[in-house]
């Protein structure tokens, strides 16, 4: 049966945001929060891309004087920090925010206001770093700042503090987001969606969230220790004061490596969804892919020392980490095998999202294999801190995460906007980006093997690096042009794209049941899941349950393993408090760059705003006013 108009109108009235700018500031709709995350992150990716082009231009000619050392060091620090902390991780969280409720047939995230708080705090981190850049106090020590160079003695001023606080900003936002995503996936699955029937995308987001929860505290601790060393003269990283410079590296990379898998694991979720839909068959080796994802998540915490092979740690320890680092190639390899097997035994439809998956496999496997090469403790002594590693990290980050992300945009764009992106321009952008990227970054492998060190603002003539650097510059320019074509296609299709309907690709998961663009309440009823691919296995009418409140915001809470309905949880409505709290927290973070007293003074506004946020709005004791409801 089609839900009647009255049913939808009552739902829409309960779930609609207040109109206008106030609605924009107070919304807790996971789709609007995700959309602003994606827009901000894509704009920052463009800015950081421009920085990359700047550096490529500087390196295209030996002894180039276009950029001085200070400007170049600021550029690569800002490029790295922005791409990793302000673009990649937030984009993956945004995809989770946008898709997890839709795939669960739920009406919002578990903690709606916490989602709003995550975005505003992330946005505070963006402003903290980029306003500092505008004011010419850009951090200039790279995206990981090893003491003692980042210590009080060798980097005066507040540049390193701004970098460290920006990380604290984004990591608190990421932690809040991952607790939100994990709680949503564990406790809000539709009736019948047991763990065995959970789509791979949700497994990917769950595992990435758990990895975030366990790894981000390490970087928050280490940046706080660095700021303490710089501001209140603690001795964590001063060898003469009893500290150890390597303690920073251990703690940072204990976070660093899981971080890059937090970026990669969601990408495997995107690829699995796309491959399943465009091969038009159930994903081959569902359990193999999920188990591989789990082992990648677990192994990621056991191999951080491969970033420190050259610091002179005991050899046997290094060899253990070689084995652990190489072992991660097994689950990754099995995942790749399962995707290719799914395509092999399916009826392939080569639309743009599938093109991106093919681009992903072709590029990421090169990155994975160059990763296996640098994983060797011995060979890494020749490869680390050279352009070989720059090539490897771009192949696994752009090839392994950005290409699936472009595919995911092309795949879920019709669901978000109701219109299809143009296939022709989609493939032109694909050729531009993938072709340009490989032209740009393949030569860097050879530059590294020809001895070009990393992070050099210029290099002497006569080393044989000139032509390869010029090819790399050309390739990067082509890739960025392709990126602009992709964005232009997205913007153009918003108005003029072919109308898509609710399920243009014939997808297998629940997000294709709701209309596109989905209304504020996502779906009229709570779907019941009886298989891994509900949209394919059920008849014309999707089995669903009624009974969730229509006149107040309610979400269904189910049990963790078997998704048995437990109770109807009141879902928080729009509120300004998340924004207020994130302003208070931002003020405290920025203040604490200048004086430790800012933490004590800043605590008061934070306490006040959090009280406002969590103050349950129920009737006062003894008054007979009916329950205030929404």
């Amino acid at each position, binding site marked *: 049966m089609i839900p009647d108009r009255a049913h939808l109108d009552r739902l829409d009235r309960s779930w609609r945001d207040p109109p206008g700018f106030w609605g924009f500031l107070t919304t807790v709709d996971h789709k609007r929060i995700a959309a602003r995350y994606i827009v901000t992150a894509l704009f920052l990716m463009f800015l950081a891309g421009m920085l990359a082009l700047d550096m490529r231009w500087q390196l295209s000619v030996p002894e180039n004087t276009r950029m001085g050392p200070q400007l170049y060091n600021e550029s690569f620090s800002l490029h790295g920090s922005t791409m990793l902390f302000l673009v990649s991780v937030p984009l993956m969280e945004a995809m989770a925010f946008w898709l997890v409720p839709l795939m669960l047939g739920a009406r919002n995230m578990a903690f709606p206001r916490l989602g709003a708080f995550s975005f505003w705090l992330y946005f505070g981190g963006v402003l903290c770093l980029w306003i500092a850049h505008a004011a010419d106090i850009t951090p200039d020590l790279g995206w990981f700042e090893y003491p003692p160079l980042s210590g009080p003695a060798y980097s005066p001023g507040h540049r390193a503090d701004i970098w460290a606080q920006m990380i604290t900003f984004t990591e608190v936002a990421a932690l809040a987001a991952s607790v939100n995503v994990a*709680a949503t996936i564990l406790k809000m699955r539709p009736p019948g969606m047991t763990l065995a029937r959970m789509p791979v995308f949700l497994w990917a987001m769950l595992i990435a969230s758990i990895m975030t929860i366990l790894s981000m505290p390490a970087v928050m601790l280490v940046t706080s220790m660095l700021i303490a060393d710089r501001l209140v003269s603690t001795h964590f990283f001063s060898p003469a004061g009893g*500290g150890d410079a390597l303690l920073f590296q251990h703690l940072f990379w204990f976070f660093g490596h899981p971080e890059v898998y937090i970026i990669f694991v969601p990408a495997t979720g995107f690829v699995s969804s796309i491959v399943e839909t465009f091969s038009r068959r159930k994903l081959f080796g569902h359990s193999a892919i999920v188990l591989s994802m789990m082992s990648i998540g677990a192994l990621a915490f056991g191999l951080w020392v491969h970033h420190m092979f050259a610091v002179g740690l005991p050899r046997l320890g290094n060899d253990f980490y070689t084995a652990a680092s190489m072992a991660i190639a097994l689950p990754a390899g099995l995942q790749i095998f399962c995707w290719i097997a799914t395509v092999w035994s399916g009826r392939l439809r080569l639309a743009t999202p599938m093109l991106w998956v093919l681009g992903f496999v072709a590029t990421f496997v090169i990155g994975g294999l160059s990763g296996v090469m640098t994983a060797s403790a011995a060979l890494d002594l020749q490869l680390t801190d050279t352009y070989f590693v720059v090539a490897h990290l771009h192949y696994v980050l752009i090839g392994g995460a950005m290409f699936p992300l472009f595919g995911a945009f092309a795949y879920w764009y019709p669901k978000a906007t109701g219109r299809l992106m143009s296939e022709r321009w989609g493939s032109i952008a694909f050729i531009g980006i993938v072709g340009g990227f490989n032209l740009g970054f393949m030569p860097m492998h050879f530059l590294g093997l020809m001895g070009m060190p990393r992070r050099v603002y210029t290099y002497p003539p006569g080393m044989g690096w000139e032509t390869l650097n010029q090819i790399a510059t050309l390739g990067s320019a082509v890739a960025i042009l392709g990126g602009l074509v992709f964005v232009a296609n997205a913007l153009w299709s918003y108005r003029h794209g072919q109308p898509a309907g609710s399920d243009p690709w014939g997808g297998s998961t629940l997000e294709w049941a709701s209309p596109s663009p989905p209304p504020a309440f996502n779906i009229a009823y709570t779907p019941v899941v009886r298989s891994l691919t509900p949209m394919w296995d059920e008849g014309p009418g999707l089995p669903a349950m009624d009974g969730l409140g229509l006149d107040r915001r309610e979400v*269904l809470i189910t049990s963790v393993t078997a998704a048995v309905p437990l109770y109807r949880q009141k879902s928080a409505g729009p509120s300004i408090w998340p924004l207020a709290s994130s302003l208070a927290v931002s003020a405290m973070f920025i203040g604490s760059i200048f004086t430790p007293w800012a933490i004590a003074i800043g605590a008061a506004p934070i306490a006040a705003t959090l009280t406002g946020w969590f103050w349950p709005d129920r009737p006062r004791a003894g008054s007979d006013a009916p329950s205030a409801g929404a």
Partner: protein
Amino acid sequence: MTAMREFELVGDLSRLPDSETGARHLVWWGNVGFMVIEGTAFALAAMAYLYIMTQAPAWPPKGDAMPGLLWSSIFTGGLLLSALPNLWVLHCAKTKNLAGVRWGALAMTVIALLLFVPRAFEFVHLGVPWHRDSYGSLIWMLLILHTTHVVTDWFDTAVLGVWLFTHEVGDDQFADVEDNANYWSFVILCWIPIYVLIYWLPRAA
């Protein structure tokens, strides 16, 4: 809105309760999530402490006084004793005992406030300023990390207490009291390893 998939109603959820207790409740999982985050931060801080300790020629470094045992024992004793009223409040929350929950929250707020006093003296008697050497920095870091948790939970309990006394308490609010009590147990459990690290490891090494 474009056409959407038809539905076939197979059940009704309206008879489900609108709250639950313990791990069946959604907010309980959010609470656990944040406890895991802070627990990982404590574990990593302890790892940093042990890392520096194992590499130091002498622990505590020569010339550094031992951290005072008097106030720390008073604090630790008080904290462990506070587990009893805390468990009672937890029980009241589970059995939805309104008066017990209100007076329990007030009692826990006062107890936490009282514990601030020995904690303040602990800071004074740590024996080493944080800026002398890495040993001083580490024990100050551990103590400050734990103190922030004591303060935040005290404030959370205080606000909850004020709200409980002035409002009609619903099932969700009982769940909030339960989570608050669980969080206080977490604060107690975290303190035990840190107490050993700060006060007894320097004496044992």
